[in-house]
């Protein structure tokens, strides 16, 4: 079976804003050429490291985001020859994913016109923190700063700790948001015929993901506030995240209560003598249900405290209730669902043997999307890529 994007050639100017986009291409089977500076991509210095070996060839951050890519070092800032190689390489590519600062390439002798001349069909996606222009175009940002300015952070945190700041979720999420959008921008532009420049702002990518915040403000002038473990909201809502008997937590959503689902939930609680007044047929009335949400969640919370997270996950889901236990990364190592879907991929490392890598969330039926090769060593593919460029 061929890979989904087999035959596509992508040049990625290595940087934190482009690495996820590049990985989405590489795991879909595009040939992704990672152009690194002589010192290597910044991602090579990011913790965590494999077995605490803190050098540029052992960053798990780099290993993850750069599977299936090829590395070439081009000194674009100092070498005319390397700039020429870069432009010739673009002549062979379909897409350039560019994480440089606004104006940075032009300042080193690679203006947009030169890139366009190198390949009139090229899709050039420039991913910058705030966009190519505007009063904040030159500002500096990190994942935390993006989630702060974008509005997500003010919606997360603890409602009972006024002295505590709002919380940004961990795991480079601003950069995942931007990288996914860069992938969308690149594929859309390619489908539309190529030959275009796309200006993508991480700030805008984050700001467009705050759910009800804009409608509430635009229609009612109301501002949502953060609440522990649940949606930011105008009014205080009831707790929906509960501790379990095994020291974990579960998160439940009671949406679209169908009578059959409610009955089986009540039956389960009754069998444990914990249904309280849930057999009251008034709970079938949506308005009554909503009015008594506080009580409903208190009863469910008491029940959750008597069961393990895993019991609740399966028990509730099998009764049509939307609940998951709050997993940690290591919980996924033995997850039978991920195993059955082939989420974990085996990758061969010439020094360390076979390794389990997280793979693609997609399962395609007619083509392949998966992680196949370890991330490249710095400049590992110098000869092949220079040959491709024709130098």
């Amino acid at each position: 079976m061929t890979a989904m994007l087999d035959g596509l050639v992508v040049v990625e100017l290595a940087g934190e804003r482009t690495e996820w986009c590049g990985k989405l291409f590489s795991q879909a089977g595009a040939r992704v050429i990672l152009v690194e500076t002589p010192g290597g991509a910044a991602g090579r210095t990011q913790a965590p490291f494999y077995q605490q070996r803190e050098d540029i060839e052992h960053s798990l951050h780099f290993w993850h985001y750069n599977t299936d890519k090829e590395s070439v070092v081009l000194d674009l800032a100092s070498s005319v020859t390397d700039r020429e190689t870069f432009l010739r390489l673009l002549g062979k590519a379909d897409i350039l994913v560019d994480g440089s600062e606004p104006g940075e390439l032009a300042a080193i002798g690679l203006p947009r016109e030169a890139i366009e001349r190198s390949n009139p069909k090229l899709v050039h996606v420039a991913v910058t923190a705030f966009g190519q222009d505007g009063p904040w175009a030159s500002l500096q940002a990190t994942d935390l700063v993006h989630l702060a300015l974008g509005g997500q952070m003010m919606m997360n945190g603890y409602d009972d700790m006024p002295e505590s700041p709002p919380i940004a979720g961990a795991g480079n999420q601003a950069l995942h948001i931007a990288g996914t959008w860069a992938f969308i921008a690149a594929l859309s532009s390619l489908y539309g015929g190529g030959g275009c420049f796309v200006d993508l702002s991480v700030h805008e990518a984050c700001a467009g993901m705050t759910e009800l915040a804009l409608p509430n403000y635009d229609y009612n002038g109301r501002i949502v506030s953060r609440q522990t473990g649940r949606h930011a909201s105008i009014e205080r809502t009831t707790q929906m995240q509960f501790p379990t008997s095994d020291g974990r937590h579960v998160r439940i959503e009671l949406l679209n209560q169908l009578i059959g689902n409610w009955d089986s939930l009540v039956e389960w609680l009754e069998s444990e003598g914990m249904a309280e007044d849930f057999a009251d047929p008034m709970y079938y009335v949506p308005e009554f249900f909503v009015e008594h949400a506080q009580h409903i969640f208190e009863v469910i919370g008491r029940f959750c405290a008597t069961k393990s997270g895993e019991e609740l996950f399966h028990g509730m889901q099998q009764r049509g209730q939307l609940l998951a236990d709050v997993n940690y990364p290591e919980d996924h190592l033995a997850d039978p669902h991920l195993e059955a879907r082939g989420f974990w991929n085996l990758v061969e490392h010439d020094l360390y043997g076979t390794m389990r890598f997280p793979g693609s969330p997609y399962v395609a039926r007619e083509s392949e999307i998966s992680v196949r090769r370890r991330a490249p060593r710095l400049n590992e593919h110098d000869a092949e890529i220079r040959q491709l460029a024709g130098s």
Partner: protein
Amino acid sequence: MVNGNTQEVVSQPEHRGPRPFAGLRVLDFTRMLAGAGTTRILGILGAEILKIEWPHPPAVDMVRLYGPPVDGIPGMDRSGFFAQINPHKKSIALDAGTDAGKAILRSLVPLSDVVIDSFRPGVLDRWGIGYEVMKGLRPDVIYVAASGFGADGPFRAYGSVGQVAQAYSGLTALSGVPEREPAGWGLSYMDHMGAAMNAAAVLMALVRRQRTGQPEFIDCAQAVQGVSLLGPALLDAALNAAAPRSRGNRDMYQNLCPNNAYRCLDDDARGRDAWVAVSVRHTADWAALCSVMGLAELRSRTELDDVAGRLAAEEEIDAAIADWTAGRRRYEAMALLQDAGVPAGAVQHIDDKVERDPQFAYRGFYQEVTEPLLGTRKYESIPFRSYSYETTITRARPRMGEHTREVLQSLLDFSDEKIDGLIRDGILIAAQPAEVVA
């Protein structure tokens, strides 16, 4: 309808061609945010979205019933949240539970490039238009099935929404302070990201079809998409037997220090808490931060020049920064630090973003569209602009059944009489013109 950007859009080039998916038709069985957000993206990028819907449970897109309603009056066509998620779509109101409804859907498949649903797995199979049938009707069809846990695997019958996917994936667990239960995300992050990742699936398959002519089926699982967004932590667990845990706003992997949010002077009439986020990436940032804040003693300690030294003094450094920010307003602190090259940003509320953020104003991020029932409303644009094609939002959400008549007439040659008969039989609904409803 009128597109009425009120803000100056300086960076939008003037001469652009058609949207990239102009001429592409999508048969859309999605609902809620993760599903319908997918076709929002495709619609803004030019695809013709045929949203198949019905106003009664269980088929109804519940978001039509969610607030905030325009003028505080609930109604199928009055939800501000639905409007945000469903611009650039056509609504065909059809009861898919009836044989006549299924027959119409079956005849729309050959005319559609893409079919997408966000049902639990197997619904379209039960309607007689599963992927294998679709391929018989349209040999190069793209079918993306977007569900909570996907069509394969032992949890395939389980359901999900954003917060549940976030809990399952680990995103919830990795948002919080170490001494408390997880704070999680105060929004359905995986509904937004699910929508983007589902759209990416459609686009991959479309590009493949353009190159090979081949059909494709992609199974998207929202909960697994969430897992895939924690890659380095998963690899740390898999290869180092590590158990990664959140450190609040401090960088989980200690690549940055300091990296936190610090309280500032309250700066608005609403009296809300005010914070600024600050990160130090390297020695130059550290030197600049100390200079701006007048932290000469800290700057003199050479062991703080590298991140390991600063991590050892993290409490002390955070306290010193908090002392400095406590006497300043958010945007003032941000500007002073940014002027010195230090990453810093006000922790913004929605009104800050709409009213105060000069970058959004300059780039016209919030776009306005006028529609008779909703009035003139703000929409978040997609976060990129092409110098070759249009990406602005110009069409508001459809009213329930607004395009039933138009689409069945133009695509299936249905007569008015036939449509009226199906309406009388309770199989179709066709909405009144917008000006009548308004």
